[in-house]
């Protein structure tokens, strides 16, 4: 948790620093300003996915790239193999430094916007995500695990399959919508916006976005995790009471 926060903060500081250097003393206007339609996405009882609008302006025309990253986690990727006719887990590997959610939007195809080294440095695009795979099994290369993880995350709707568009109005204003599906992980997200000219990052800005459970659902979750014994007892009592009620209510039938 603190680790992730620290990483996020250092990234923000880096980008702010970068922005200051790039803007220079001569310019009175920021080269890039961007904001989100909201900074908090509440997951309430009726939550079924939502959209957040990113909007902003640039001082002069350029390419704009947006990256949305969820908090990092360490999922387990399993490889299946057939043993005497039955598919079983052959080996499992914990992969580190994986964003739980990842979306890229751009005004133009990524390869035309920046050089591979720039994309790699900022981890823009699925191919440039820098997972840490400590060990692998003899049956598969680390790259296979890397690709499998991206494929599985795409299937869950947490990584996007294609780079999404950013609409530009009059060379100055831009907007893009980010869709968060119902199974979106909670936590602190970072929304990074890059302004590029001639393949180089001219300006960048990072905005945090918090996705958090709110209301009854959040209370139930906290209760289940913090006082699990009491939660278990209440779950049993609820079941006994409703089963008894049902039997009494339908006694005649």
């Amino acid at each position, binding site marked *: 948790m603190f680790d992730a926060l620290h990483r996020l903060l250092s990234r923000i500081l880096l980008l702010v620093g970068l922005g200051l250097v790039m803007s220079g003393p001569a310019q009175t206007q920021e080269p890039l300003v961007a904001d989100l339609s909201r900074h908090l996405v509440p997951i309430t009882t009726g939550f079924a996915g939502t959209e957040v609008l990113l909007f902003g302006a640039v001082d002069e025309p350029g390419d704009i790239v947006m990256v949305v990253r969820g908090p990092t986690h360490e999922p387990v990727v399993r490889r299946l193999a057939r043993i005497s006719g039955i598919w079983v887990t052959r080996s499992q590997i914990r992969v580190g430094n994986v964003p739980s959610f990842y979306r890229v939007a751009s005004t133009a195809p990524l390869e035309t916007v920046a050089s591979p080294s720039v994309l790699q440095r900022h981890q823009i695009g699925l191919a440039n995500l820098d997972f840490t795979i400590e060990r692998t099994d003899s049956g598969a290369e680390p790259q296979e695990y890397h690709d499998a993880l991206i494929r599985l995350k795409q299937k869950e709707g947490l990584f996007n399959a294609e780079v999404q568009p950013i609409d530009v109005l009059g060379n100055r204003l831009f907007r893009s919508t980010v869709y968060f599906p119902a199974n979106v992980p909670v936590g602190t997200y970072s929304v990074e916006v890059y302004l590029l000219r001639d393949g180089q990052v001219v300006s960048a800005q990072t905005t945090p976005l918090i996705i958090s459970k709110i209301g009854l659902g959040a209370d139930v979750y906290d209760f289940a995790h913090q006082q699990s014994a009491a939660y*278990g007892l209440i779950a049993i009592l609820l079941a006994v009471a409703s089963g008894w009620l049902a039997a009494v209510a339908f006694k005649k039938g």
Partner: protein
Amino acid sequence: MQIYLPIAEMSVNVFLILGMGGAIGFMSGLFGVGGGFLMTPLLIFIGIPPAVAVGTGANQIVASSVSGVMAHWRRGNVDLKMGLLLVVGGLVGSTLGVFLFRLLAGLGQIDLAIRLSYVIFLGIIGGLMLIESVQRLRKDRKLGAGGARRKLHQHTWIHGLPLKMRFRRSKLYISAILPFCIGLLVGILTAIMGVGGGFVMVPAMIYLLGMPTSVVVGTSLFQIIFVTANTTFLQATVNQTVDVVLALLLLIGGVVGAQFGARAGMRLRGEQLRILLALIVLGVCINLFFELILTPDDLFSLGMG
């Protein structure tokens, strides 16, 4: 209408869950079984994480068993002494099962363990039920209403075991070890498969213990309440995988469905019902068997964590 499940951490359609609870409640009313063996695979099928499906399934079975046992209790169809012995075995078994579940989940083999147990147990029970019902139907046609009467007791090696106890309601004098072991096995299944285990316990009580059929269902429901309650508590404390919102939705559907099922059941003959149930059990078994042997879409899968 969508509702967000706080523990499963996903949103589901309320009416889908109510409908599932209703359909399975209907079947449990119709056949007099818990229906957990259908509920857990269905929940996993609609995308509920397997661990949450198993933990929540146990919680839901507590409720359906409580409402089921009350009618049997009033009619005196619960053998309390036998029930308590089964409970003791079941508590030990389900505790072992929850920790076994955790161990297998850590090894990445829990999905395989769940599927394999389903295939093996549903295959055996469904097959036996089908064979027996078909044979009885044929016999009934040949002999008319009569048929051969079963002996009250058949003496086997089972009666040579030590620690004998008298069970008045069941009219039995047998070793206490046997019900304890049956309870233990069913307890492990409860934790791993998210079922009540009635479909294993009822045949075991009839064929292994030789209990009269009148007390079998009530006594097994009595045991299931305590064992699934223990499983619910342990899954909630050890794995945090009990979703009360999901359990309540399933319950509401289940309670209503069970009433309609019980009414529909009165119009069908016992043997026909048993053949139908056997076919459903075998259907689920074959479906899961193919999942084990067919090449999956993706040779990699994502674990929890």
